[in-house]
């Protein structure tokens, strides 16, 4: 009996020691795993989550959509269950929207999230990009409310089949910074108009195709031009001269900062994206043209062009319908009106089926085909107040972006359904 008692005593000591280890696990290991816990627990929360577009069409309803097109087109916005995209909706839901209660563990604040996206347009934009074989992005903003209706990016990932993807698929090109090319000219023009509108409007330059600072595309001589003509012709020499005459490098830098072109917090409800870069100190002329070391994101440029259409009021782009729009007057109404009038022929030339203004851009690169940009804002009273930006990486030039944007706008935005 003594041996049995000794055995039972040993078992009791083991139990007591094990209890200490268990408490040690709770204090030590659980604390170290707290951040990982949010993601793991968040995965369980996500089964109760519904994400819809602006019309209530489900994009995610406890699980991914059954349609591959929807899964791919919205991947960069909603993300996946593993937190692959740090600033996506599902990752945000797992981390920021998840609270930990000492009594009852993890709880989620939201069960239904309504995005400002228009799923029909999103899928259409993605299809156009994918069918054209492009690596690029289409962004559509409502410039009066800041709603992001489209933010499609290719290549993308099918969340149901995540192992099959191309290089760069996890990057949302709408939120990455690229050389803006001639789309920067509107920014330079706005900076000059804001500083001295009279001088800017009176500015004149005779373009011979090249000068000591820059050259135009194909060294085309544009002749005598005012600012309006410089914008229409996208004259590199003219805008460079304009910048040298009216602006200092610091002033151009500050202006770009003041109009939110360099912000990282866009969309404002999912901050922490890539920020733009602009330093005219390196080379004022080429910085004004949109080359040099300039790097801007498609969404920030889209918001700027939207501010032009919105009479100088910049509204922070956002993805959640719950987010209150934040408006800020970044340029004078007269500046905005001048730019809109000056850029109207560009949009008309692109074959947009309504009144609009816009700017193309071809961003030259050293060892690769140039990027193509095209950004327009619809000003027609019969058309919705949207700004559309198309960026195509290494596509060869702005003409490709122009063609895609025109097709998207005319076929899907202004009429017709997604086939």
């Amino acid at each position: 009996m003594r041996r049995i008692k000794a055995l039972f005593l040993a078992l009791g000591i083991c139990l007591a020691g094990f209890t200490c280890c268990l408490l040690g696990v709770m204090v030590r290991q659980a604390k170290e795993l707290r951040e990982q816990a949010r993601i793991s627990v968040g995965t369980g929360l996500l089964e109760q989550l519904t994400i819809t577009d602006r019309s209530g069409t489900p994009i995610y309803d406890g699980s991914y959509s059954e349609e591959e097109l929807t899964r791919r087109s919205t991947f960069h916005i909603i993300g996946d269950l593993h937190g692959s995209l740090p600033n996506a909706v599902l990752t945000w839901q797992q981390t920021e929207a998840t609270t930990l209660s000492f009594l009852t563990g993890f709880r989620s604040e939201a069960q239904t999230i309504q995005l400002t996206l228009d799923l029909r347009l999103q899928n259409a934009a993605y299809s156009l990009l994918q069918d054209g074989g492009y690596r690029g992005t289409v962004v559509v903003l409502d410039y009066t409310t800041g709603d992001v209706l489209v933010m499609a990016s290719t290549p993308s990932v099918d969340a149901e089949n995540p192992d099959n993807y191309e290089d760069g698929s996890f990057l949302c090109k709408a939120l990455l910074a690229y050389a803006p090319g001639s789309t920067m000219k509107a920014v330079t023009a706005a900076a000059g108009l804001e500083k001295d509108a009279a001088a800017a409007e009176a500015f004149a330059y005779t373009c011979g195709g090249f000068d000591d600072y820059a050259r135009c595309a194909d060294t085309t001589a544009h002749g005598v031009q005012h600012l309006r003509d410089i914008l229409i012709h996208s004259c590199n020499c003219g805008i460079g001269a304009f910048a040298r005459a009216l602006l200092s490098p610091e002033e151009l830098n500050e202006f770009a900062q003041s109009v939110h072109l360099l912000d990282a917090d866009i969309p404002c409800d999912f901050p922490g994206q890539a920020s733009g870069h602009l330093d005219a100190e390196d080379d004022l002329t080429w910085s004004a043209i949109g080359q040099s070391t300039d790097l801007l994101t498609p969404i920030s440029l889209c918001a700027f062009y939207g501010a032009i259409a919105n009479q100088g009021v910049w509204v922070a782009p956002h993805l959640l319908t719950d987010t209150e729009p934040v408006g800020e007057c970044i340029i004078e109404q007269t500046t905005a009106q001048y730019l809109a009038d000056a850029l109207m022929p560009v949009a008309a030339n692109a074959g947009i089926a309504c009144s609009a203004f816009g700017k193309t851009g071809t961003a030259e690169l050293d060892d690769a085909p140039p990027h193509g940009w095209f950004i327009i804002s619809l000003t027609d009273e019969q058309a919705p107040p949207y700004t559309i930006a198309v960026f195509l990486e290494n596509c060869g030039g702005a003409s490709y972006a122009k063609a895609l944007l025109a097709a998207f706008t005319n076929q899907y935005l202004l009429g017709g359904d997604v086939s």
Partner: protein
Amino acid sequence: MHNFLQYLMLASFLACSFFVLYRRRTVRYGLIVRDEQGTVLADGRQGLETTFGRSRNADVRLRDPTLSRQQAVFRYDAKSNQIIAWSKAGEAGAARVVPHNSPRFSLPRAFSAAYAYGSLVPILAAGFLLLRMIGAYGEFRDLTVLLPFCILLVYLILSTAVRVDHVPVAEAVMSILLTYYVDATLYLGTPVEAAVGVGLYTGCAILAYWVLRFHFCETRPVLRTVAVGAALALICLNLLLASDVNGSYNWVRLGSVSFQPSEAIKVLFAFALVNPVRVSLTKWHKILYFAVFPAICFGYALLIRDVGCLLQLGVIYLAAIVLQEDNPLISLCLIAFAIAGCKLVLLVSSTAASRYLGWRGNAETSIWAALTGAGAFQSPYHYGYQSTRATIAAFQNGGLLGNGSIDVLDGVLAANSDLVTGLLAQKHGWPLLLFLLLLYGLLLYSVMQAMGQKSKFQQTLTALSMTLMVFAMLLNTGGTFGIIALTGVVNPALSDGMSAALCYGTCFGILASSGLRRSYRVNLKGESV
């Protein structure tokens, strides 16, 4: 709120049970009662309290209608070297008594109070069962979910009704634990499956208790022979028919039924290693039962690559040797061999070795860090993710009172078997883990206290069963939270599965049997009835 009430009930049950057991700790010793042939019917030196009376449950039944149902109770007090008698009529019943040394008779204080508050134990346990039943119905809204709880209530009532003076602590602990078994089964199964599992547990417990009532089990090697035969048959069946499941060959499919023979072999192994009383083993018997048969079982565990089973068999074997072997040198040699055997397992099994290295982390990790979960088990998605997920489920997601809406273990393999403690802590709160450990502590205390009344055979068998259960519980819970570098061992009375019911239901029956006295019935003139 339900979980809070549950904790209250558990705390009350534990406090009451510990108190009752503490108060009854001296209520043990009785008399030696022999029949006309001199055969010992009740051995007071082993700690029986002997009851006399007309009652069917009396240790010495006196068929005299003039006597009370409980005419007298005798117990031996070693300190005062007295036989203390209690009688309603103020005198002892007329039965032959063999006193120890030179007794003196005296009337003790009334001890019926010890039995009165003993009834609180089954009452509180029954209250807990009802509370869990209400909670289960509230969750599932299905009447069939009440079936397993009804089985448990019936079992608890029967175990209480067996003897008036019986405090069914082991049965109550088993019933309480099985309510969480129902939770684990309902996680992926149906109420009918839960009811079948509970029925198996209680059925095996009742069967074990009933078999051990027979005196010949202690005095003849019947159980041993049957156990060895059954174990060898199961070993052959396993080796011939098993298929690979997650690297182990311990699942056998017969038609639509799958089961693990290794679970039954564990308890049969314990039966085979216990020597019957007053039976002398020859040298060849010793070699057969303590060398050949264990070697076959260990080899079997290695062949099926079940390290958990191997460890459990090893612990039972060591305990059996330590308890029954009088030569300390042999005991020490076998312990050293067992420790060396652990290293051998790591050499033989690459899976066990890699898991050990993952658990240990790098060379600088201290043992305390490894025991509390350092090493590579840090990712919810990669190697060791089961332990990580279970830890998150229990200590982060469970909170203090449980999280009934979010399941971190969804889709994780073996969530309701190997990781059941994580699953239950997630649902009911992490304090449940402490209560479960306290329940095992209570079981340990009650069995240790009650075992003094039993023969050496039953004491040894009880000790081995207790060791098997506690070790399995430690392996399961430790593996779940990364304290031990092992998974694949189910938790007794908690994990989903029918195979474990055979083993641990039997173990519970053995433990319950240790707390229940047999009645010896003799007539007034000393003739057996």
